[in-house]
């Protein structure tokens, strides 16, 4: 009887492990790392920033995760409604490395997360100010499954509790068609403008203790066609 019970328990553990391994190695849940905007013909604007918390102006969360708030004495989001939310203010750079402006990003874990489908979802919005140009609002659904699978989990498995390499991925997964995010202009040259956006991460190092250590992120915003730039349909 005891031997049968042990065999049953071993079977359950092996079955659960086999299922989780299948989930982890499932090739059908890989994300496309190529942004649809990078192959389009429209002009795009690239804004880069560091997703590393200590590189931001301000980063705050509930204070209990491995990514610590920055600066140390910033007010933390410990209340029940916001404890799965992070807020960050960061400097944005243009494609030549010059300062382009300041962005504020709010990210909340999404109840649309479905690990079965390879969806580790985060709902985020950006509030962006680009001096001399105007302001923008960006809305995105982000999927961190590939990032978790290829960086975070290997870092936990590593004997030195870290990951090093070169990983690039697009995290934007909606709400628009082709998995694009939505951008709405507020003022200046962006007033009444509506377009699409993607956000990508290029990671080089990740630590279990501190989260991302060396990484760059990029917001690619599709700019609308200007007058005289319109494509005329051929007969």
């Amino acid at each position, binding site marked *: 009887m005891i*031997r*049968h019970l042990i*065999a*049953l*328990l*071993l*079977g*359950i553990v*092996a*079955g*659960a*492990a*086999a*299922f989780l391994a299948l*989930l982890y190695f499932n090739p059908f849940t890989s994300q496309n790392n190529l942004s649809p905007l990078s192959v389009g013909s429209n002009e795009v604007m690239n804004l880069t920033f560091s997703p590393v918390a200590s590189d931001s*102006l*301000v980063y705050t969360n509930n204070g209990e995760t491995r990514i610590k708030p920055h*600066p140390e*004495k*910033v*007010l933390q*989001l410990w209340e*029940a*409604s*916001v*404890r*799965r*939310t992070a807020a960050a*203010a960061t400097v944005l750079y243009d494609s030549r490395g010059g*300062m382009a*402006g*300041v962005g*504020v990003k*709010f990210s*909340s*874990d*999404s*109840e649309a*997360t*479905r*690990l*079965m489908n390879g969806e*580790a979802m985060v*709902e985020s*919005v950006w*509030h962006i*100010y680009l*001096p*001399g*140009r*105007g*302001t923008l*609002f960006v*809305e995105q659904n982000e999927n961190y499954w590939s990032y978790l699978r290829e960086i975070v989990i290997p870092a936990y498995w590593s004997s030195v509790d870290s990951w090093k390499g070169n990983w690039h991925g697009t995290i934007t997964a909606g709400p628009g068609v082709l998995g694009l995010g*939505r951008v*709405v202009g*507020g*003022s*200046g*040259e962006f007033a009444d403008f509506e377009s699409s956006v993607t956000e990508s991460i290029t990671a080089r190092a990740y630590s279990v203790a501190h989260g991302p250590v060396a990484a760059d992120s990029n917001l690619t915003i599709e700019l609308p066609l200007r007058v005289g730039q319109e494509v005329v349909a051929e007969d």
Partner: protein
Amino acid sequence: MIKTFIFGLVLGIAGAAVAVAYVPVVDQHREASIIAVTPNGGNSETFHINIPMDRIMVGSPARRQPLPVGLQWPVDDGLANLRSELFKVRNQRDAVIGVASRMASKDDVAGEVLEWVLHFPARGSMYISMQSNAGEGGHRVGRIRTGSGEFEGYQGSLTERWVADTSGSEDAPAGRIELVSRFVGAGEEL
């Protein structure tokens, strides 16, 4: 015994599949919304921000004491007129229900800009452009440009005003920023 092991294996696979499929990974806490119906058929919701308790960040080159302590605001001519603030947002029961970004700036291209982004986890976000000048009674009115989640497809306005604390209580805030949103569905008139 092999049969028992195989039965356990199938049970383990099925159990893990059911757990992954049906046990929610994320279950956001929700405060019940306090929404009032307005006479024109729209609805209204009031939020507030206790000052200074709910202020997370004040980014401004003009500020001598940075908030939070240790903030290194970039020194750049382009940001000379920008004041960027982050707050926690409360409902009428004084419970924190979200976070907000307020940006005020003035430059040659965009003119005077004053905007809010309100973000409520599990509900959605609003993007609002405010009038730069306050009206009677210190009210400033803005237009909800767009929203996400439950605020998607709604049109409406947001009113902002400063309400100083008059309670005299020692641990009372200095005052609060009161935000009143008024929505109607797309295509309806406010």
